[in-house]
Structures are given as structure tokens and as C-alpha cells.
């Protein structure tokens, strides 16, 4: 093979492989809303909210929360009450003790995960991940705009290591969630926490 024909072959390969690679990449990521990051937002901010969602059994599940960065750490609280009368989470109360992380699971999105440790009335102490999405101010009542979801991981016997999505991320039936802009005090820790340590598990099943 002459030098000229070798160059031509390489050029042909590049012409085939580069567009092919791009197509493959597009197919692989088709349908993915954004690249998962699980990073502390930078600059960090915070989220507040209250309201309720409808569970898979058709009952109310109420929540009230605050979470974000403050003075080099995290702050806030998450409270949740499930009004199901049947099923695994019937009557579940979740009351946070500490906020251990505040993540932006999808880079550049208005989705935030508040993670921490909580007491429950059914599963002892758990790690939790409350997912919020602020899509603007509702016009009335609060239904159908913002989103909320909750996942827990047991840390007390006999539930240690067990994980469950209590409510997958869904539209509020009432209430509001606000993602607030950063201010000079909303700084996170210099070393970001581990997602598994702070939240107890990954976000599989929680949805968006």
C-alpha cells in the first residue's frame, strides 16, 4: 500500500467512525433529561416547600421541608406523613434529625435532593432522600406544577440496608416548592459528602 492510499484509507475511516460515534452517543443518551451529577450546587442555594401529593393508593401524603447550604454546611428539616390506610407505608411518619447533603442530581436543573437521617414510626431510624422540583409558582391551590418524591433506607435492625421509594417523584396536589437563589451564607462544605453515606442509597426508582 502506497503512502497516498494509506492516507486515503485513514481519512475514510475517520469519515465513517466519527459520525457513527456521534450517532451512537445520541442513541445512548436519547431520553435522558440531563447527565446525573449528584453534586452540591455551586454556588449553593436552598429549597423550601410544603404541600401534599397523592400516593399510589389514592391517599394524601403531606410534607413540609427546608434544605440547603449554610455557612459551610447543610441545614433544614424534612417532615412527611403518609395517610395510606393499607400497604407498607400506611400511617408512616418521617421526621428528620439531620440534613447531611443537598444535591443537584441533574446538572443545571431545578431539581434538588435533600438527604439526611430521620426518625420514623414504622422503620426506626432511616436515611432519606427527598426530591424536589420547582417549576414556578402555582396559580391557585398549588396542584400540578412542582414535584416531590421520597426514598428511605433503613439503618436500624431489622430494616438495615433495606431501601424503599415511599412516593416516586410526582406533581403536588397542593402546596408549593421554592428553589431560592444563593446568598453569601449559602456555602456548602469544602469536601462534598458521599451520596451513599448521606442518602443511604442511590436514587434508583425515585424518578423525575
Amino acid at each position, binding site marked *: 500500500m502506497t503512502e497516498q492510499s494509506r492516507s486515503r484509507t485513514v481519512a475514510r475511516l475517520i469519515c465513517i467512525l466519527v459520525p457513527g460515534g456521534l450517532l451512537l452517543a445520541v442513541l445512548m443518551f436519547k431520553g435522558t433529561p440531563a447527565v446525573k451529577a449528584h453534586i452540591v450546587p455551586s454556588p449553593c442555594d436552598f429549597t423550601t416547600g410544603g404541600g401534599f401529593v397523592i400516593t399510589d393508593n389514592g391517599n394524601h401524603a403531606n410534607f413540609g421541608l427546608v434544605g440547603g447550604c449554610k455557612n459551610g454546611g447543610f441545614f433544614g428539616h424534612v417532615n412527611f406523613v403518609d395517610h395510606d390506610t393499607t400497604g407498607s407505608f400506611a400511617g408512616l411518619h418521617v421526621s428528620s434529625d439531620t440534613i447531611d447533603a443537598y444535591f443537584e442530581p441533574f446538572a443545571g436543573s431545578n431539581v434538588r435532593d435533600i438527604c439526611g437521617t430521620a426518625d420514623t414510626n414504622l422503620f426506626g431510624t432511616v436515611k432519606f432522600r427527598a426530591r424536589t422540583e420547582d417549576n414556578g*409558582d402555582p396559580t391557585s391551590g398549588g396542584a400540578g406544577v412542582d414535584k416531590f418524591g421520597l426514598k428511605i433506607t433503613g439503618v436500624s435492625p431489622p430494616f438495615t440496608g433495606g431501601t424503599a421509594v415511599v412516593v416516586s417523584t410526582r406533581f403536588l396536589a397542593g402546596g408549593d416548592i421554592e428553589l431560592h437563589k444563593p446568598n453569601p451564607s449559602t456555602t456548602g462544605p469544602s469536601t462534598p459528602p458521599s451520596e451513599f453515606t448521606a442518602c443511604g442509597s442511590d436514587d434508583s426508582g425515585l424518578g423525575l
Partner: protein
Amino acid sequence: MHWKLNRPALIAGAILLVGFLAWPMRGLAQTTSASTITGQGTAVQASVYSILGTVTTALADTGVIGTTNVAQDAGQVTGSVASLLNADVLSSSTYSYADEVDSLSSVGDLNLIVAGVSITANSVVAEASQALGAMGTGSSYVDGLAINGTPVALTGAANQTIWIPGGQIAINERTISSTGAAVVNALHVTVTGVADVVVAMAKAGIS
């Protein structure tokens, strides 16, 4: 074509350009700083009157903030005031920036009985905000409100009032002070001589 530089025009243009570039910096330098700041969120504040005096109870109350760049929050999974009120997921927060104060308060599963009148709601949320130099704003979200089991049609307007025996219920009660500070009471129940109950109060002021 031959262009000839006009020296006086060039100098005038340069002065104009420097003045234009300096304009925003002068504007920023002249921005006023806040001297009065107030922020508070309270999930429930109930005053009950009796012959023994007035007993006031606050649930999930942030307390008052009075400086910039601070945040306070309070929350509880359930809360009650004896013989008056039960509620879930009570949550409040208030926070200040150098040029803004925002507050929020929310209550779930409200079950309130005042002077024999039952008031229930699935969710009650109040929000208030004021940016420096602007008038305060506020909003509330009340879902599933019922009086003695009868659903109440909400207008969405500020200060909607419903009369009850001996008193009234104000829904989405909003007050703006002379300095622009905003106070929003999502629900405010008053029965003369019996009780004064605010459910989900948010206050924000900066001037």
C-alpha cells in the same frame, strides 16, 4: 475615499464613552443598603382567651431575624394546641439576603375547632417576600378548606372573608406596611372573646 480625523469630535466621543462605561458603576455605588430587616415564619399562632387570661401558643416558629444573610427554620412532624387544633408537617423558614427577605410557612392536615366550628384543610401555605426598594409581595395556597365539613370555594383574591358564628375566617390575608414589609396569613380565624388563630404566617421586610 479618504477619511480625515476630526480631533475635537474624537475627544468628545472619548469623553462620552468613558461616561457611558462609568454609568453602571456609579449606579451600583449609589445603591442604598438595608437598615431595617425583619423576617419570620410561624406555622400556627393561637391565642385562646379565658377568664384566667390569654394563652398564646406558637408552633414551628422561626423567631424573628433582623440582619442580612441569615436563615432560620423550624419544623415538626405533628403539632397540636390542646382542645383547639391538630396538624401535621408544620414547617417554617425565613432568610435574608443583602437586598431581600423571604419567608415561608406551611401546615398539613389542619383540624381546627373554634367555638364549635370545625375548620379543616389538606394543606395551607403562606409566602412573603420583599426586595430592597420595592413593595413586599405575598401569596398563599390553601387546599381542601372546609367549614363544618362543607367545602369552601376559594376566590384566590386577597383577604377573602367568611363569617362564622361570633367571628370570621380571613383567607389569604395580606398586609403591606408603610415601608413595604409584607405579612401573609394564609388562614386567620377570629372568634370574639374565644380565640385568635393564625395558620401559616409569613413575614418579610427590608428597607
